[in-house]
């Protein structure tokens, strides 16, 4: 058990701290619930409507793409700092890396991911007429 003492201690302290603080606050904290106190906190404003609102999927796409190219930059910095040590192989590697991203960039560009409005989208298809939402959910089990 030599290797285990430390791990055990860490686990005990970690779990123990969580439990102890929850239990303590349960017993020590005064409780006077009112409807206002139980309501969700929204910057002091009275809560209105469902917190989960629909956002256009475009935001997510843009966010994802931003993330990708942001990381590209994060890779470029350390390479630039170590450029001399890395020499030619480093240059080749970063070029390969960069060109892969360029291909991706061309792809999203051509596919119209960067076009915000539908009028520029070459692949745009008219959405189906809004009808009652299809709630029939597929469950595998029914087939068997």
């Amino acid at each position: 058990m030599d290797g285990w003492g430390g791990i055990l201690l860490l686990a005990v302290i970690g779990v123990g701290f969580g439990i102890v603080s929850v239990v303590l606050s349960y017993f020590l904290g005064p409780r006077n619930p009112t409807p206002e106190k139980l309501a969700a906190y929204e910057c002091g404003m009275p809560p209105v409507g469902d917190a989960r609102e629909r956002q256009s999927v475009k935001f997510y796409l843009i966010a994802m793409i931003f993330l990708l190219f942001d990381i590209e930059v994060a890779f470029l910095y350390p390479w630039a700092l170590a450029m001399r040590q890395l020499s030619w192989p480093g240059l080749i590697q970063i070029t390969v890396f960069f060109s892969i991203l360029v291909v991706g960039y061309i792809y999203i560009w051509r596919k119209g991911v960067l076009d915000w409005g539908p009028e520029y989208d070459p692949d745009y298809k008219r959405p189906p007429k809004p009808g009652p939402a299809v709630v029939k959910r597929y469950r595998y089990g029914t087939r068997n």
Partner: protein
Amino acid sequence: MLALIPLLPFAGFLVNATMGRRLPKTVTGGLASAVMVVSFLIAVTQVWALAAMPPESRQVNQVLFTWITAGDFSLDLAFRLDALSAVMILVITGIGSLIHIYSTAYMSHETDADFGRFFSYLNLFCFFMLMLVLGSNVLVMFVGWEGVGLCSYLLIGFYYEKQAAADAAKKAFVVNRIGDFAFILGALLLVVTFNSLDFTTIALAAKAMPVEVTFGTLSLITLLLFVGATGKSAQIPLYVWLPDAMEGPTPVSALIHAATMVTAGVYMIGRNAVLFEHAPITLGIVAVVGAATALMAGTIGLVQNDIKRVLAYSTVSQLGYMFLAMGMGAFGAGIFHLMTHAFFKACLFLGSGAVIHALHGEQDIRKMGGLKKHIPVTYWTFVIASVAIAGVPGLAGFFSKDEILFETFLHGHQILWGVGVLTSLLTATYMFRLVHLTFHGDERFGAVADGHDAHGHAPQHLSTPAPEHLSTPAPQHSHGVHLHDAPAPMAFALIVLAIGSILAGYVGVPHALGGHNNLGAWLEPAFQATNCGQPVATGELAGIALEDCLPGEEAGVEDHAALELSLMAVSSLVAFAGIGLASFLWLKRKDIPAQMATQFAGVHKLLLNKYYVDEVYDATIVQPIKVVSQEGLWRGFDVKIVDGAVNGAGYFVSGVSIVLRLLQNGSVKTYAASIFAGAVVILAFYLWR
């Protein structure tokens, strides 16, 4: 040249499988028969060449290529012709040819496509069967072993429109797989023990090992192989598939389920004779199982009413005889009986096919009778074969059966000998019950012969929707006055086989009757571990091999002549007694069997229902497996099913989507929980060890 013997049927299969549906019947049938006949002729020349060699070196090897290598273990795809496989290939190609010829007439009512399908399966079967007997190692044999099982399955289910045929096919397959399981394990164990699968190498190595008095590796290997054999050769406890297999077309029953495939287990034991000789415990089990099967099947055969089922149980019973012989170490006797049995049983099955053909599908012997004068060729050949199987002196069955009984007695197993004699009595009785009910007595078939069905369908199945090719009206006969006897190709096969049933025994006339037991002498080297025919592999083994090449002395043969003669007298009497008994009961005093049936209603019912073995298997094995697989594991582990069940219920509840969403979440959770639980178990294992 040797490879041509199996490859010709394979070529026939390829042609018929690809083009059979477009070719006329004369071409498909003719081609399939022709390849078999040519294959037979090649086999004859090969065996002839083999016979010209000195007895100790009778072996022809043909290595096609190296099949498998792993480290120092290597295995060739190779064929080996020796005395034992020579007998087998002659039987397979010879009787196979006859049955092919017979089938061209018997199956002529089928559509071109079905006709082609039938012959392609039949050719494929012959290919695999020849692989099985020619293979020089266990794995090549296993290829054939599995292949014949597959073909048997396809052929039993040939009339797949019939539920009974499809079920029978499935049953045959399932039961055979159980046997195969043991066989594979046995083969794997052989690799471990001998690091080889070549029969000769194994035999030489086994010979160097001591005979196992207690249960050891060799006993385990041989026992596993024997379990494999019980599946293929329909012995207790795996015999149940063979009677059901009679749902297949009758030529199939004759070829596969009488003459060739079912004897594969016997052949396999003969092939590994040295191995089995070193495992006396297994040999004892083989003998007892064989004798028990012989007796049990014989009693069941006594009361069955379906002409093919009687023959099926008779086959099971005769196979039991062969195993009895193998178990006695009398391998030559077993193979001898295998050969003679192939003749008369094929003849009987083909004869029954001719009867069924004549009566348009009637198989119930209670609805036959008096056929003697209508179909004389069938009648006479059938009677000859029946006399042969009954063991009447002078015909094939007598010599081979007698040798088995003699060997059994000689080895001091009087009880098994008694069982054998009793079975012999039963054999004669049920065979002549069959003959009398079918061919003698009153004509009882007039009223029932309306089903235009020459395909081996029992009448009770006629209510199933008739497929197209069955609904074409057969030629009208004026029943009771004129029935077709077997057409020329069928008659030819019947007559040749009947002649064989008479003469096949004379290759093994025992010394006691002034013969020389030629077959026994011919086969003897095949059961010894000799390596004289080929360069000896290692110096260590060379000494053993040389020793074996010296001709063995024939001591003790004369001493037993008197004993053998008296035993022969006993079994001849038994054969005549059985025939007489059958004639008395089913010709003279027909009331007695009925009386006995009512008097011993319990026994009768037990026999009629085949000891309820099927029912017992179903209740103890089949159903539990089904329940475990469908209810237990499926429900327990396949969470989706739980979902499905709850899901179905969910439709009765309002707020379906809520429930489903919760469940949706739940199932991924369950999966994750399973992963987590698995991880915890593994880690816990490491921590608590």
